[in-house]
């Protein structure tokens, strides 16, 4: 039963309205990170939050819409990473439904897993589109060092993604987890497919 609900394609109106709001939250996370000059992107809080609230499918849609809109408004390169964001939403949603957000420790594990999977998805994209670099200074410095030591391209590129993605996603998931725990119950129930009471 639980599985069926998780993959339900019957979205409520609330879920549809959640998508733009979540994309907005992603955008704000990125904005705050740059205003506060943090060395991370933190641009997936909305995606992770949406998948915690409404399940993996909604999370994946948020990811794709996020990068398409971002590509349209700021940086066309982000179209390439739409798949990565979709997978982040999918993984976070599945694990959240399996109970990996019950406490802080589990949330950190969730962050590490999401970071690893994001890196696994990004690496082929990076190699295909720009021979392995990511545009992040720290990651690319490591990439260059590994290439200088004649390590294989894919390994260097994967390391390049890992050092950037894992800390970033752990922070992202942790922040989303803290916000999620602080949400009032009536907001959480709104997107939940289980209860019939709050269904709009």
């Amino acid at each position, binding site marked *: 039963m639980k599985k069926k609900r998780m993959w339900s394609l019957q979205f409520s*109106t609330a879920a549809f309205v959640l998508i733009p709001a979540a994309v*907005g939250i992603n955008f704000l996370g990125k904005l705050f990170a740059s205003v*506060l000059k943090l060395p991370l992107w933190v641009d997936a809080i909305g995606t992770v939050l949406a998948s915690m609230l409404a399940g993996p499918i909604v999370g994946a849609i948020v990811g794709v*819409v996020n990068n398409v809109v971002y*590509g349209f408004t700021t940086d066309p390169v982000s179209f390439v990473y739409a798949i990565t964001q979709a997978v982040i939403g999918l993984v976070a949603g599945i694990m959240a439904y399996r109970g990996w957000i019950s406490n802080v420790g589990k949330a950190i594990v969730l962050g590490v897993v999401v970071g690893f999977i994001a890196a696994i998805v990004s690496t082929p994209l990076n190699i295909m589109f720009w*021979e392995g670099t990511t545009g992040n200074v720290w990651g690319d410095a490591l990439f*260059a060092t590994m*290439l200088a030591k004649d390590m294989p391209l894919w390994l260097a590129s994967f390391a390049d993604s890992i050092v950037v993605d894992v800390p970033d996603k752990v922070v992202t998931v942790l922040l989303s987890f803290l*916000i999620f725990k602080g949400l009032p119950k009536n*907001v959480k129930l709104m997107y939940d497919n289980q209860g019939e009471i709050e269904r709009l």
Partner: protein
Amino acid sequence: MNNMTLYVSRDSPVHRVDPMTKLLFVFISITSTYILSDHLAVLGILLFTFFILLIGKVFKSILPVIGVSFLLIASIIIVQGFFHPDRATVLFEIGPIAIYKEGFLIAFLITLRVVNMVAAFGVLILTTKPDDLVEALLQKGLSPKFGYVLLSVLQIIPQMVALTGKITDAQRARGMETEGGIWMRFKSFLPLLGPVVLNSLTETRERSIALEIRGFNAKGNRTFLYERKNYRYSVPFRIALIAFFLAVIAWRVIS
């Protein structure tokens, strides 16, 4: 503040082309540069894309968009130029560091591809109103609900940014530090983001009730408020693009 898009309103032949045709152009222009690995051919495609931007009178507006990708391009040139695995021939030396020919050629090719990718999207983004693009997609059969999602993002983000300004001021008035060491800045992240997120999530509740009342979930065919714009020459443009694409594939297979 309510203008999120990069759309530049001009009167040009490119602005009058069907959005779907431009979408096809973006796809073919980008995939062609990745199918071909000949520097001259890729350069030719890039120059053609620039030429279309010039006709569309938006060439100046693409430069800041390319600038956003500057860091990516710079790191490609540096990393590939110095450290590409196939490095053998020294092109020239700066002090103790040598730039290798193989890496440099590859870096040059990738740079051309990245700039072409940005410029090709620029053709679509700078000359097409998002409303027109979504409308064209809806007429091609995109679900109206997703059409709503795409367009409402563009409206919601400026609203949320405005709200953010208010919340930052309010938290500062309460004595929150937003400057200082990295840990200090990091600590202020949650009190800034928390209220915005809560607020926008509670708003979704009201918004979904408002949408329900207006028949968001209604079944049956939707009608369009605006009449379909008359785009000319769509078919010949598309045939030309597809013919070009087939020629690119054929060339790649032969050579």
